[in-house]
């Protein structure tokens, strides 16, 4: 990033828009497609103004069909375009699942490199906004489980833009999950113009020596808050924001653990089969001799995401995160 670059103070969703705008300006192969992304500018306004600026051929309102969106985007990508497909909510991505896992994820492998799929599938995900049924789930593990997909989950406006630009430039398909709880929760400095945040690199958000806490997306905030509270009690907490959940930055994960020997994972996705299990297994495989306590998993429950009257009980709260970290520390 050059020194002369100006910064703007943006929310996370504005950073999405800015990332799209930047890459559409840089590269005319980039098209945005999805439901209500055109004149309406997206139901969260993530594509606001793009249709006015780039027109109907590059900002495309599609028929209401997620399989159609993903499948045609794969065809476009294979022919040299750079589609960025929006799924209106991650809960409505399932019709596209077949196209994503059976084709996007493996087009390169099964054609032995003859065809590739430089596709980004964006979707707002996660809970906490008092949304109707099916609008709040966190199912990143489905995609992380699929070989051939990269799965990115930013937690700051700066990372959002930089990671989105990297995702669009990536030669392979990227699932870009946007934590909608923090779409507008705060602002952050975002450079104007072009910059990348590399896919596959975690960020240490807070250094500490007693315990490592791994998290991502909207859960970064309650985790940071819990860490501050525990600091006052004399517990020194290191917080690692994964930023990319697949491929995972195992080096950073292990390095932190080697220092602390204790760990907790925080995600709003259900506990069973969640990414916390992958992190825990990684620590066990690579740093067993450093381990001083069981790894705590602070996660959503193994139940359907409740309607909103109960969602605060489902989502990891600051208190729950504190309790979990304390368990790891006091074991």
């Amino acid at each position, binding site marked *: 990033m050059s020194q002369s670059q100006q910064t703007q103070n943006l929310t996370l969703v504005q950073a999405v828009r800015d990332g799209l705008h930047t890459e559409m300006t840089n590269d005319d192969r980039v098209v945005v497609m999805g*439901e*209500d992304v*055109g*004149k*309406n*500018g997206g*139901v969260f306004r993530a594509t606001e103004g793009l249709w006015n600026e780039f027109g109907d051929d590059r900002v495309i*309102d*599609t*028929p*209401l*069909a*997620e*399989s*159609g969106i993903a499948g045609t985007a794969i065809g476009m990508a294979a022919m040299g375009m750079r589609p960025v497909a929006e799924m209106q909510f991650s*809960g*409505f991505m*399932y*019709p596209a699942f077949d196209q994503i896992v059976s084709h996007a994820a493996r087009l390169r492998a099964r054609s032995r490199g003859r065809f590739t799929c430089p596709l980004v599938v964006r979707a707002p995900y996660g809970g*906490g906004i*008092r*949304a*109707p*049924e*099916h*609008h709040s789930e966190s199912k990143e593990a489905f995609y992380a489980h699929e070989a051939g997909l990269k799965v990115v989950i930013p937690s700051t406006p700066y990372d959002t833009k930089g990671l989105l630009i990297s995702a669009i430039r990536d030669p392979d398909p990227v699932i870009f999950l946007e934590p909608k709880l923090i779409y507008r929760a705060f602002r952050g400095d975002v450079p104007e113009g072009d910059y990348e945040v590399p896919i596959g690199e975690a960020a240490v958000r807070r250094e500490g020596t007693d315990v490592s806490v791994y998290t991502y997306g909207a859960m970064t905030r309650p985790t940071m808050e819990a860490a501050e509270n525990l600091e006052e009690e004399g517990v020194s907490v290191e917080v690692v924001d994964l930023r990319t959940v697949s491929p995972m930055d195992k080096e950073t994960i292990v390095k932190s653990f080697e220092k602390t020997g204790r760990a907790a994972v925080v995600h709003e996705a259900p*506990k*069973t089969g969640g990414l916390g299990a992958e992190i825990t297994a990684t620590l066990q495989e690579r740093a067993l001799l450093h381990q001083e306590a069981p790894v705590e998993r602070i996660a959503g*429950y*193994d*139940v*359907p995401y*409740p*309607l*909103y*009257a*109960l*969602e*605060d*009980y*489902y989502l990891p*709260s600051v*208190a*729950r995160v504190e*309790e979990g970290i304390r368990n790891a520390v006091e074991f």
Partner: protein
Amino acid sequence: MSVLQRDPQDMLRVLDEGGEPVGEVPDLSDDELVTMYREMYLARHFDTRAVSLQRQGRMGTYPPLSGQEGAQVGSAFALDEEDWLFPSYREHGAALHRGLPLKRTLLYWMGHEKGNRIPEDVNMFPVAVPIATQVLHATGAAWAKKLQGEDAAVMCYFGDGATSEGDFHEGLNFAGVFDTPNVFFCNNNQWAISVPRERQTASATIAQKATAYGFEGVQVDGMDPLAVYAATRAAVEKAKDPGEDERRPTLIEAVQYRFGAHTTADDPTVYRDTDEVEEWKRKDPIPRLEQFLRNTGRLDDEKVEAIESSVKDEVAEAIEAAESEARPEPSEMFSNVFAEQTPEIRAQAEAFAELHERRGDEGFLRE
């Protein structure tokens, strides 16, 4: 000849915009006609109140139905007791005709699990939020009725946008192949959020898609409750008792308009002209039916006033009942996942209860 045997581009109408008959008025008693009017009026009033509850922070996101009362109530009216209804998320009017208490509808949009439980005696499935998914369930349910030798029709509602999803096509295809007793009712309200009907399909009508599945498709004026009733009634009868050479399923496209926003989270002024809205408001199904009922001596000022005041009371009572419902017990989220709770879910429920006991609601509730 059945009203269903027509060109899918020849829209069925019974009342014109002024409430004058332009087609055959269906055979409904005076009481039934007045009840139909009352239920449409109730749906409108409920809708207005629900939107304002959301605005006041007393309810979550809500999908309004104003403009669509004629299609909803007119079609639900054509069902018999034993028939089933598979809704999308906007058919509060059809649901109330089927006997779903308004309180349930309110509780659902207020985020209570309880609002999703349909009372035992109401033949209706819960709301389907993922677009078009219910079409296949309705086909399967109708298929089951046929295999079980029961005479029941299954009605399925969905929007114009829904006709773009694979599930819509698969559902109608199965229905055609297995000749299931279905009525597929498309509430074509011209918009799928901000996307106009022309962006969903290059076909001239949605009704004509039925031809490809081997059964009848008919377009009706969805702002005309009597036309809607006539078409749906014919479709329900045919589903249960088809004539020789007739196929049981029917696709009905009810051409109508959503007067308000897609949901309370939507701002329609971004994507459509107010002129268009005003034009459709002149076709409003409620004054249209009212005019017809007045012209034919079935309604007068006194009766209309009585309906208005009883509707207001009924809705106010439902709102009060829903709002006085206690916040659901957090433990509810762990129940009904399986017939029998698994050991892991039980362990999670116990850990939750222990923490809740110790930290109280302050440990969980935000804001």
